[in-house]
């Protein structure tokens, strides 16, 4: 079965690793982490993501630039803020964003 590809952007490395691990623990999903604006933009060009989770740490202007660029590349991919940093809200955020 094809997995839902999810890009997670968060500058806090430990939290980023935790979110990727949690996503990968779901057999229907695959998470890829980016800890900077530049890395997120590069990864977005090379992989067909179905969802982008915007976690903690980017400066407001970086968030703005990221959203602008991602929308320019593929407006159909939802970009949602991730809150909480762990498993509490993560899957609800994903299911809501994917319209499940």
């Amino acid at each position, binding site marked *: 079965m094809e997995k839902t590809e999810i890009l997670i952007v968060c500058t806090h490395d430990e939290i980023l690793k935790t979110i990727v691990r949690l996503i990968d623990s779901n057999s229907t999903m695959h998470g890829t982490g980016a800890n900077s604006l530049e890395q997120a933009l590069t990864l977005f060009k090379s992989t067909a993501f179905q969802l982008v989770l915007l976690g903690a740490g980017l400066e407001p202007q970086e968030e703005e630039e990221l959203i602008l660029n991602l929308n320019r590349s593929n407006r159909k991919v939802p970009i949602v803020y991730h809150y909480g*940093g762990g498993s509490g809200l993560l899957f609800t955020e994903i299911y809501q964003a994917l319209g499940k």
Partner: protein
Amino acid sequence: MSKSVLHTAESRDKSDHGWLKSYHTFSFGGNYNPERIQFGALRVLNDDWVNGGMGFGEHPHDNMEIISIPLSGALQHEDSMNNIAVIESGEIQVMSAGTGIYHKEFNKNENEPAAFLQIWLFPNQRNVEPRYQQQRYSDRSIPNEFQQILSPDPSEGSVWIYQNAWFNIADFDMEKSTDYKLKNKDNGLYVFMLKGSASVGTQALNERDGYGIWDTDEVTIRTAKGSKILLMEVPMNY
């Protein structure tokens, strides 16, 4: 015309991890119910029961206002901001997770369970510097009066968070009617019945029921003898 939503105690999702029993008013962890996501900025209301000596190992949080209110027993808290503290019944703890923190919390007592509310609110600012605050409120309690225990304003004396929210708590040893005036017309009030029974407007509530009401300026709460209530005023749009 006011709007309202009732979440009965029985309708809450329950998770049982052996050492932890948790009742979730809203979707949490692996439990997803699209009809039960949040009440405005109030996103998590977990009613947790932790066995003696057990607890939550180190785990991260970011961009969330996390409020713990012990109802019985005591919790040992340690976090990545070097805070080491014990919180117990009669106290409230807040953490603004902001750019990211790690913490762990355990039942301080080996032989008795601890019960506490874990409440998460969406912040009104993302990526703030993480902060921690703890306060005993029970020393200032007046029987049969609501007492403010949380606000957005440090000068109000209670603990504060990055959100336009106000929490009040009260124990009642007599029947009483109280009119609660909302601080902001865009806020709603979520009433959580900790013990006993009450009515909010025409809605009767029993132990651990939750009731949210919005598009109103004032709410009348009639409490029964022996009741305990938590009021959470939160923005409906945040």
